[in-house]
């Protein structure tokens, strides 16, 4: 662990409020609108067919893409009522998701009858990762009763759509204004506090991608852990890294709008990382034990770390905000 001391810049940029407004209008609101739309399509598709394969997989992938694209925005409506966890509980180091699903299936638990009642169950049995087990994992292909499994798939998709819709509504109708117009009664007292929230989302998103999406499967050289890759069952592990980098890039460049030198540096580093990602030919990181593949995944992690450096050491001080505390603090 290292502690680095930096002094908060004394003169915050005058255009902070403008940049927050454009981030809300161009990054946040469109992202949650896309999530609401694709999850509704997923629910409708599952209502018609719960058979593994297309068209359900296509709808699943589109909706999961939309979530990963906004998943770094974990504050306000995203954090209320456990919503973000209810959409995506990962990492799951104790295997809670398969355990919770097996228990529901074994008991044909009627809690799965409606999305309303399902909102009470453990987050481990909700959201995209639970659905992934049901749609892709061999162990769940024929576990228990087929009708119950179908009902479970339909209910989980309906729950995902309901949670996504609630987030979208709250962002649109309530929280966007709070972020744009700080005041004594708002969660943000000053434009600088709103900027810090967005800056923290950027930093935390990069940290999550580096430490969890890449670091967990990489493990150590002697002990690579391919089974710890995110969404490996649907072969989406690398895709999540690419989606998050693309989305975080747009947020970073918008935050740096009034600092062209830093914006250019960030642009270069993001572009490089996205380039490196495109050359990793291993969608589920199954090859982290293979030296040829491993070196590419490690290079990708270094590229993400170099973005984090620029964000923490250049962008933060220029904006006059610190990285503060996030959910990844601790052990």
């Amino acid at each position: 662990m290292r502690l680095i001391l930096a002094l908060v810049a004394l003169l915050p940029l005058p255009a902070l409020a403008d940049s927050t407004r454009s981030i809300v209008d161009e990054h946040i609101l469109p992202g949650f609108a896309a999530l609401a739309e694709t999850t509704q399509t997923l629910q409708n598709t599952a209502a018609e067919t719960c058979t593994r394969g297309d068209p359900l997989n296509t709808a699943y992938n589109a909706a999961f893409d939309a979530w990963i694209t906004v998943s770094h925005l974990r504050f306000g409506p995203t954090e209320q009522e456990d919503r973000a966890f209810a959409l995506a509980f990962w990492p799951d180091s104790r295997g809670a998701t398969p355990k919770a699903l097996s228990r529901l299936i074994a008991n044909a638990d009627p809690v799965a009858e409606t999305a309303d009642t399902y909102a009470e169950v453990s987050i481990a049995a909700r959201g995209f990762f639970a659905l992934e087990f049901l749609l892709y994992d061999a162990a769940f292909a024929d576990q228990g009763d087929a009708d119950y499994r179908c009902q479970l798939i339909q209910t989980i998709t309906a729950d995902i759509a309901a949670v996504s819709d609630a987030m979208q509504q709250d962002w649109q109708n309530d929280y966007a204004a709070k972020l744009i117009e700080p005041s004594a009664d708002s969660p943000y007292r000053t434009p600088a506090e709103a900027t810090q929230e967005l800056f923290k989302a950027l930093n935390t998103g990069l940290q999550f991608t580096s430490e969890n999406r890449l670091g967990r499967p990489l493990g150590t050289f002697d002990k690579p852990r391919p089974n710890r890759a995110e969404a490996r069952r649907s072969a989406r592990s690398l895709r999540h890294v690419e989606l998050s980098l693309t989305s975080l890039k747009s947020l970073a460049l918008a935050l740096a709008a009034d600092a062209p030198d830093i914006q250019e540096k960030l642009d270069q580093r993001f572009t490089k990382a996205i380039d490196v990602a495109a050359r990793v030919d291993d969608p589920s990181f199954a090859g982290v034990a293979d030296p040829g593949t491993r070196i590419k995944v490690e290079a990708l992690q270094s590229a993400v770390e170099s973005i984090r450096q620029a964000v923490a050491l250049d962008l933060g001080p220029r904006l006059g905000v610190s990285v503060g505390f996030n959910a990844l603090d601790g052990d």
Partner: protein
Amino acid sequence: MKTTPMFLAPLALALATPAFAVEKADVLTNYANIAAAKYADSVTTAQRLQTAVDALIANPSAEALEDAKAAWLASRVPYQQTEVYRFGNAIVDDWEGKVNAWPLDEGLIDYVDGSYGGPSDENAFAVLNVVANPNFTLSGSEVDAAEITPALLEETLHEADGIEANVATGYHAIEFLLWGQDLNGHGPGAGNRPWTDYAAGDACTGGNCDRRADYLKASTDLLVSDLEWMAAQWIDGGAARATLMENEDAGISAILTGMGSLSYGEQAGERMRLGLMLNDPEEEHDCFADNTHNSHYYDGLGIQNVYLGEYIRIDGTSVSGASLADMVAATDAALDAEMQGKLSTTMMALGRIKSAAEAGFAYDQMLEQGNAGGEALIMGGVNGLVDQTRSIERVVAALGVDAIEFEGSDSLDNPEAVFE
């Protein structure tokens, strides 16, 4: 990175006003004094545990087991209050896993119930059961565990196979050896290990009572020596104190980093909210002893007493002096009032969890799916901790110290890479 002395000037001037002068060095000294007292108290209570464990092993009885449990519970009171030192002080964080690692796959250590399951995807040694097996293979090499020693636990078994859940040492390993698994699910009641698990000859239950006693003895001795080591780091001339005092701004930043990281990511997130969202009674911090309400309470108290700069020792004496609160008050009195108010609110909320648990509403029950009262109690604590973190961030901004933490970042350990 470089900090230009020029930028330091405005803050230094603001703090130079005589009537409000609070010297950073005094705040840091008091913070280190409190650490020294908390770790010394942790040593004292761990030695009492050691005495009780020795008595249990010499003359196993139901009463001796209860005495050892009572000593373990008492030892948690000062130790949990030290947790606020973890995340800001690398020397504590690097060491902490030896004494307080959690959660653990307890099947590594001793027998477990059939419902526990076998080896998992994540951990091939989840049911190794060292107590029952004097020889086994670990990551390809034969291990001779005929003698259970502190060295075996510390060097071979702890985090075996690179898996963090293989916890072989510390408070929670001892807790498991005293209480056993809590098989009550969401019902009230802690683990119920019979005292005869330590009995001699035919009276022995659970098998291998002598090896179990050896394990308990070795892990308790190790806990005492590990705590003694840490207590020594905080006395005058100790490494932790020296590092803290090296750079005053970095020291103040370390205090705030410890407070914020424990409040938010660790306690509110990992320890409280996650367990609630998973409705999992195993997501209890002190799950074998059903002591989680105290674990949370004393963690919160540690955060509060570090800010206020006053710690009440286990013998009732007080350690106090210049505090972060004094420093914030001199810079922005309203912010200090806000911070103190938030810390008190959190302690009220954590106190409600504690009093409900002590009156019979176990933490396991609070975690149960659909238990609205339990959810409200736990979320009260979570919300208080989350809310106080926002104020800690405001304090960071007001004092002009910015804590940036990178764990194990190669490029930061190699400054050239930053400017590639």
